[in-house]
């Protein structure tokens, strides 16, 4: 075990290298670029022996990963924002083909106007692709989640791709100390991939041909079952990692001072980390507030949220919006409580396009809830917002 101080992106590249993928295919996009550059450096120094395919688009990056994964390779890619949106068709393809590809998405808001700063609209728009989604709030969590993602994706009861997301610049370009296990220790934690199916001339299968309506629903059902299996496996894998390497970030949700809370802030990614800072401050003022930082958006941790809502009202802060409705986490939290809980749920939109949200801002959001108890879509720090 050694401690490396580096940016979120370099830590992601290091984690990808230590997971020993056979094939990496990627296309550069800000703020993901320093990942692909770092991997190129590994290749040049002979530190990465897999194949590195510099493709001509993100659509092709995912297509190349699909081809490689179907031929039995462990595969990795990384992207951001418009790159992720261009991949959208192939994200569905990878998940339906049950290929355990691991991808980093460095969250970036969508243009126009051109923006390179963070929000989660890019990955939230991929909610229904069948991918498992993990949101990180520190560089250590990025490292740990990427290696764990391979183990999860390749598990025989999952066989689904995993997207590891974190905020552009806030994490991607910020250095933090990260505990990094030795290669042998990683190898021991993450054995070689055993594919569920493979393109093999000795056993010629036709994959993905026409499927009749009577058969199609069952392949969707199998994906749903796999996500349910992932819900059980994510905590197990995180626990195993903690035992081996000592670092831990929560299971599906990281909970902080929730036990006796009257209000629980729910958020994800960097905003989730920022919220943690404010809890102690509020507690000192006698306000019983806790934090539930969602690490995993798919599979959605409904049961955990239901138990959080037993004794507390929930304040959901989305750095993302489903235009025409409300924040995606806000919607889903209410949905899983429907008919089962009397908890009040408040939803705020904050920090879109990288607009700074400080811990003091989160404190103000909590105060507004306690004082005004407003309903509807609440925009924080936006002209015309409630």
């Amino acid at each position, binding site marked *: 075990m050694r401690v490396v101080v580096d940016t979120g992106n370099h830590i992601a590249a290091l984690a990808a290298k230590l997971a020993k993928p056979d094939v990496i295919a990627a296309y550069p996009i800000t703020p993901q670029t320093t990942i692909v550059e770092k991997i190129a450096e590994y290749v040049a120094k002979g530190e990465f022996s897999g194949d590195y395919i510099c493709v*001509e688009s993100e659509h092709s990056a995912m*297509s190349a990963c699909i081809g*490689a*994964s179907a031929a039995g*390779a462990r595969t990795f890619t990384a992207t951001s924002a418009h790159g992720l949106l261009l991949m959208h068709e*192939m994200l569905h393809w990878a998940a339906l083909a049950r290929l355990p590809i691991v991808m980093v998405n460095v969250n970036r808001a969508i243009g126009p106007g051109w923006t390179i700063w963070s929000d989660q609209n890019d990955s939230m728009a991929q909610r229904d692709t069948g991918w498992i989604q993990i949101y990180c709030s520190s560089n250590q969590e990025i490292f740990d989640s990427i290696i764990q993602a391979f183990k999860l994706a390749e598990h025989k009861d999952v066989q689904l791709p995993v997207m590891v997301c974190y905020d552009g610049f806030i994490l991607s370009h910020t250095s933090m100390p990260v505990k990094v296990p030795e290669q042998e220790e990683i190898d021991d934690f993450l054995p070689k991939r055993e594919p569920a199916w493979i393109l093999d*001339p000795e056993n010629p299968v*036709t994959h993905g041909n026409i499927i009749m309506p009577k058969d199609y629903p069952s392949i969707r059902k199998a994906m749903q079952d796999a996500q349910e299996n992932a819900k059980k496996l994510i905590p197990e894998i995180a626990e195993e990692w903690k035992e081996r390497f000592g670092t831990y970030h929560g299971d599906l949700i990281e909970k902080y001072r929730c036990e006796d809370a009257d209000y629980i802030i729910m958020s994800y990614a960097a905003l989730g980390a920022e919220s943690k800072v404010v809890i102690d401050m509020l507690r000192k003022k006698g306000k019983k507030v806790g934090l539930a930082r969602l690490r995993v958006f798919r599979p959605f941790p409904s049961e955990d949220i239901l138990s959080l809502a037993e004794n507390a009202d929930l304040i959901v802060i989305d750095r993302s919006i489903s235009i025409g409705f409300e924040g995606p986490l806000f919607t889903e939290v209410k949905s899983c409580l429907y008919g089962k809980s009397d908890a009040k749920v408040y939803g705020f939109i904050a920090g879109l396009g990288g607009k700074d949200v400080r811990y003091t801002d989160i404190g103000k959001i909590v105060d507004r809830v306690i004082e005004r108890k407003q309903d509807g879509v609440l925009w924080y720090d936006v002209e015309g917002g409630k």
Partner: protein
Amino acid sequence: MSLKDLPKDEYLLPGSAACPGCPATIGLRTVLKALGKKTILVVPACCTAVIESWYPNSSFNVPLLNIAFEASGATASGIVSALKQKGRDDINVVVWAGDGGTYDIGIQAMSGAFERGTDFIYICYNNQIYSNTGIQRSGATPYGAWTTTTVGGKGEFPKDMGAIVRAHHIPYAASACISYPEDLYNKVRKAKEIKGPKYIEVLTPCPPGWRFPMDRTVEMGRLAVETGVWPLYEYENEEMTFNGISRAIFEGKYKRKPVEDWLKLQGRFSHLFKPKRDEERIKRFEKFVDDMWERFRKEFG
């Protein structure tokens, strides 16, 4: 190599879901005989996705990965990389894509794979239309041809895909036609032995798409070559060689049949002849073919 000497092995099995008279199945039989068992096929959206028949059945006896319409070239790159990592250099990775998936929506991924030097064979079976979706125009559809999206006849000429591919300076590019299976077989065999990206385009006359009787598929391909509409060639290490009748045409030893002989037999061009002859459009079509051969002579003569 004569037809009767082709291997007896069949990798396209009986009971496929192809239309009667389908040229793609003739092409697939021939191509797969040349490729042999150690082959992985990548098939984007196209007629072959239907020819495969439906899950859980398959008419293919080699592993086949269906992929999205525009994704073949990149998918092949991924497979080749994976096989390389496994130390398998004995498996042919072959894209089998239609003209829509090649000339139009798939051109970027194909171009990328060529530029990267992916060791694979890209075969475009060109029936000059989006036939699987019901006969719409593509970038390969000839001038004047009726399709469901060019109801009065297409107003534009097709792309010069041969020139586009040659501009990538890949080691091998060839043009073939299902009506000349020995020629097609030899080209695939040759491509198999060459490292790097290979491109073979195969003309596949489509009875429902071109509007001709299903027993005249082979004849329609032959006429395309004899009229000079479809040249047969190999472009190897930057050297052009025309094959068969195309060679004789190139060398001026064979007088091309009038293009009309080919046009007249196809319902998709019937509006050029009925109710009255459209001299202007027929002439423009002729001139397009003349110009093509003139360009060949200038460039390769």
